[in-house]
């Protein structure tokens, strides 16, 4: 049975997701030793700017006009309103070339082989619900449940699934939720109009469990470690990463932190891109 990693990258004028995906793919290959494929609507950008890219397959998706915008911070003091194209994730079942697939966001940086073990498990869907913010003081309730009175939150940032009739139904459900987002957003009392894959996955898992706390999905090994877009990546070396984490009640002031051998979701894509370009990330 084939195994591999898939990364999504759909560029917008503000963020070069392809650049992030190339970096994330190299890290993933280095630590997991598995082929990596890219799903993108920007193949020509990839081939022009990253001719020596590490991708095993490049899978094209149609370019869709942007339907939503989101504010991304770059550290605690700067922010930009950017186009946000996140509507193809639910099509992963049909797009992946692998039987067992690890799907990661282009800003999920792998520094360990912990996810490799997930490929030897016989589970339909493995996904994180447990997470840890590197900044200790921040409220993490938004990543515990999709609202304080609703269902458990799951991260669509990284997950492993096998192709079978069960996961086919799951991704069909995710797609259905996406197509009827206004309805599901109100039904689950979600306070943002933005479509988020995390929410759609959380709702679909809830439905797959027959609206109970079932065992459809299994926790991925480890914990989803993340830094938010108000934090800044300042350096990496081998399997280590260094961040400036925003301080509580002191905008523009930061605390330094270092991780060793931890996979990290770096939500500050602008800082990550700056770092890849050879800057310090600041």
């Amino acid at each position, binding site marked *: 049975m084939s195994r591999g990693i898939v990364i999504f990258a759909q560029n917008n004028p503000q963020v070069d997701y392809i650049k992030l995906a190339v970096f994330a793919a190299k890290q993933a290959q280095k630590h997991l030793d598995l082929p990596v494929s890219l799903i993108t609507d920007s193949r020509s950008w990839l081939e022009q700017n990253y001719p020596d890219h590490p991708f095993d397959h490049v899978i094209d998706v149609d370019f869709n006009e942007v339907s939503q915008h989101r504010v991304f911070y770059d550290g605690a003091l700067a922010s930009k309103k950017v186009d946000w194209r996140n509507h193809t994730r639910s099509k992963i079942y049909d797009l992946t070339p692998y039987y067992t697939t690890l799907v990661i966001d282009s800003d999920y940086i792998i520094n360990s082989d912990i996810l490799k073990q997930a490929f030897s498990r016989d589970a339909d869907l493995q996904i994180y619900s447990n997470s840890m913010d590197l900044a200790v003081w921040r409220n993490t309730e938004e990543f515990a449940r999709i609202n304080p009175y609703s269902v458990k939150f799951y991260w669509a940032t990284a997950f492993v699934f096998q192709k079978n009739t069960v996961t086919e139904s799951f991704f069909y459900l995710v797609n259905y939720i996406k197509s009827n987002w206004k309805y599901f957003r109100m039904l689950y009392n979600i306070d943002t109009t933005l479509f988020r894959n995390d929410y759609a996955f959380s709702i679909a898992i809830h439905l797959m469990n027959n609206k109970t706390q079932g065992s459809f999905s299994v926790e991925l090994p480890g914990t989803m470690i993340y830094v938010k877009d108000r934090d800044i990546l300042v350096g990496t070396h081998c399997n280590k990463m260094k961040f400036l984490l925003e301080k509580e009640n002191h905008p523009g002031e930061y605390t330094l932190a270092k991780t060793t051998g*931890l996979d990290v979701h770096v939500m500050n894509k602008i800082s990550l891109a700056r770092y890849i370009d050879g800057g310090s990330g600041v």
Partner: protein
Amino acid sequence: MDERIEKAFAVANYMSTLAGQKRIILEEYNQQLIHYTNGATFKVSRELIVFVHTLTELGNTDAVVLDDNNFPALIDNLQEFLEEISNVYNEATREYADKYNDIRVKRKISDIVEL
């Protein structure tokens, strides 16, 4: 600013960085404790080691053990499994102790987070 106040703020900043780093190395330790066998996941703990040791002491050579997701996993060689999880525990704990002692004696923030 009064020099002593400035120093107090610098110490507070150092303490905050140290506390954050201790939390991160504890998470690194927790991830290193994860052990896989036959598709089952175990976070190695003292309890697991003692439990498996007890099974071997009672003369069992194999057993079904529930993993962290409550999946039943057949361990067909308990002695070998015991050695594996003991090694995982020892290596992870030793590395955690090294990291802990390393950052504990550092007095500068730049040294604590040096790449």
